[in-house]
């Protein structure tokens, strides 16, 4: 089985992620739980426009993070990341 990409780069999800974490996510970094790749989230593969936001590893295409916004809740699964490193707020 091969796959055809249909993704945007991680910057496309920056607004979504910033609203969640309150930090500029384009400089955030993480490590893929599947293959161990370390990356900036801007380098992740973003799938948007569907029921939620999905970030996948640029190395192995495993899911790093899924985010769903309902009228009353924000759902986050970041279990595909070994860690997530955010920049500290300036000042």
């Amino acid at each position, binding site marked *: 089985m091969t796959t055809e990409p*249909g993704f945007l780069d991680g910057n496309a999800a920056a607004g979504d992620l910033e609203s969640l974490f309150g930090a500029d996510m384009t400089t955030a970094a993480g490590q893929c739980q599947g293959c161990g790749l370390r990356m900036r989230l801007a380098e992740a593969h973003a799938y948007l*426009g*569907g*029921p*939620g936001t999905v970030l996948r590893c640029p190395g192995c295409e495993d899911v790093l993070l*899924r985010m769903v916004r309902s*009228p009353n809740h924000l759902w986050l699964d970041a279990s595909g990341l070994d860690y997530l490193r955010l920049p500290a707020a300036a000042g």
Partner: protein
Amino acid sequence: MAVISRGFHGRARDKGHELPPGQYETTGFPVLSAGPTPVVSLDDWEFTVRTETGVRYSWNWQELMALPSETPTVDIHCVTKWSKFGTRWQGVSLDVLLADVESGAEYALVRSYGDYTTNLPLEDLLDGKAWVAYRFDDEELPAEHGGPARLLVPHLYFWKSAKWVSGIQLLDEEEQGFWETVGYHNYGDPWREQRYQGD
């Protein structure tokens, strides 16, 4: 002087279709993906049903094509709020595929090529309500819409109609799928607007 009111009829209603609450009609067919499009060759394609006791049933592409097919024309409703009326499909009813499967399970977890999954009660796959569809609009189902074959369960929101379907796990206990684990509804009835858990 008589004033004749034509009344207030939506265009959709005039054509004999109705929009579930919160939906709008589209004539396009948006492509929504949560991951890369798997390209599965028909030589390698297989559809597998596993029962709650571990018994496995499978069909390759030739075996699927040899089964009697149906040509449902149905309205589909995406949870992202578009609905598309009168979509024309060809596929094999799940009644045919599950006819000889011995199971007392109540739930199904549908699996796709790639890592997509979705859950629904087994009874919603039966009684003429669901198909493994491989043609759309008289053409082979394109990969971006789930080809070679996708599940078609039009009475539920369209995320339940898994693209690139590879099989069904029958379960005694409900197990949640890709979107259901991050807040989407376990059942997803568009007429009751069951978009999110708690709806």
